[in-house]
């Protein structure tokens, strides 16, 4: 446990230093953040372009779909901000630079995560938040304490799930030594997927995103509860509250796999 709290303290220090250093270039940071806000805003235009033609997609109105988009969008944006650079870890593994990480008496994952922080992606977080705010204002949510509690839980779990997915695919790059486009199918692809109700997808895609990479547990299932909708797919009702349990299990698997992958590291031959 002391190890873990040490890791947390160290991560906060290292990331704090990164934030301070990036904050030195204030104008550049603000421009980047505003730019990425405007650019990702275009992303939602696509959803709007579809919904111009019908009132509801499989029974979900635009504000309701925006709720899914918002939860998933904040999740991926936060995860991408903190872990997106793991996609380039294969370069360090290939070149042998990962050696340095093993020499220091600190958790490998903390070092790798703290190595970079894409603060400029805060614009994306804001864009997804704006969509979520629109969704909450426009959709008819009958607020209860349980619903009020479930919304932040869904958002936090979504961020953790996407972050763990980045870690999993970074672990796989210890073997592939290359950029992993398949990982994108579960990070950015997962985001596209979970922005729409699960029921529009065919059986194998549903299983893939509900049980293999359990993104449906942080968006679709809690979304059903928040909006008081019936699940046309007939999954058990407790799925709607299972986000914390599923996320914890998934994160544990990702961490275990990371340790396994690091042990596999053989450095370069020369």
């Amino acid at each position: 446990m002391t190890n873990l709290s040490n890791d947390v303290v160290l991560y906060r220090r290292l990331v704090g230093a990164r934030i301070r250093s990036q904050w030195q270039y204030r104008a550049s940071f603000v421009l980047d953040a505003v730019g990425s806000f405007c650019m990702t805003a275009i992303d939602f235009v696509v959803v709007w372009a579809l919904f111009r033609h019908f009132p509801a997609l499989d029974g979900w109105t635009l504000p309701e779909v925006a709720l899914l988009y918002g939860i998933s969008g904040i999740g991926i944006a936060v995860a991408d901000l903190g872990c997106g650079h793991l996609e380039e870890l294969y370069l360090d593994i290939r070149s042998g630079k990962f050696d340095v990480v093993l020499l220091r008496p600190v958790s490998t994952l903390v070092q790798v995560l703290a190595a970079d922080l894409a603060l400029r992606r805060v614009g994306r977080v804001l864009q997804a938040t704006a969509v979520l705010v629109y969704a909450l204002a426009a959709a008819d949510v009958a607020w209860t304490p349980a619903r009020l509690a479930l919304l932040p839980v869904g958002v936090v779990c979504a961020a953790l799930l996407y972050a763990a997915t980045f870690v999993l695919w970074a672990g796989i790059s210890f073997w592939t030594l290359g950029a992993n486009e398949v990982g994108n199918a579960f990070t950015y692809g997962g985001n596209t997927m979970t922005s729409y109700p699960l029921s529009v997808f065919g059986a194998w895609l549903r299983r893939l995103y509900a049980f293999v990479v359990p993104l449906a547990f942080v968006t679709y299932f809690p979304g059903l509860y928040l909006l008081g909708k019936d699940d046309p797919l007939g999954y058990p009702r407790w799925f709607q509250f299972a986000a914390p349990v599923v996320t914890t299990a998934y994160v544990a698997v990702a961490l275990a796999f990371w340790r396994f992958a690091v042990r596999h590291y053989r450095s370069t031959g020369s």
Partner: protein
Amino acid sequence: MAAYVALVRAGWRRWSAYRAATLSGLATNVVFGFLRVAVLLAALDAAGPIAGYDRSTAITYAWLGQGLIMTLAIWRWVELATRIHSGDVVTDLSRPVDLQGAYLAEDLGRAGYQLVTRGVPPFLIGAVAYDVRVPGGAATWLLFTVSLSLAIVVSFAMRFVVNLGAFWVLDFRGLHGASTVLVTVASGFAVPLAFFPGWLETLLYALPWAAMVQAPIDVFLERHTGAGLAGVVALQALWSVALLGAGRLLLHAATRRVVVQGG
């Protein structure tokens, strides 16, 4: 000329070296294809045909788009920008071939390889899984070949221009990010341009991004006939010339006025 032919070959061979990456990328494109088809079909179920897209044309649209991603390299191509930042572009400039011509030749080789490995397979998989709309007449196929070739040139010329921006900005990521989002939406890749309100569709169709994705797909789906069809392909040709010209002008300006870093 022999040098450019050799560069086309080199482009092909260079990309064919990464087989595992090709396979994993292909798998990704295919998974996304199924996702996109599911969303489009749900939309059509809710609305009926949208702007002339029925089930089979929407399916065909989605799978053609998945095949175009890598064939056109619409998203990630930062090679020239990287070489500009590192200063390596000086080596490129001192070679006895035209810089833009050399990059174009290599990109054509790349596009050829990606067309075979990443362009056709997703479409074939889509055709097995769903009913796709395949044009019957030889004329359409011929025109599609022309339109696709022009799309590759427009895409290269646009990427070349955007990459040249690295001569002027210190951090290329912002420019690259902006161009990625623009191409995704304005090219008609994310949703058909016809799904947008009329004024926006007209505007986007006139811009160069539409010449990359929406134009060849429209030719394949036979959405235009006669003068309209000729106009679509002519516009692609116009953008090819204009963007290649803009690239030359920018390169000229850059080599005259900008000090290359890294020296």
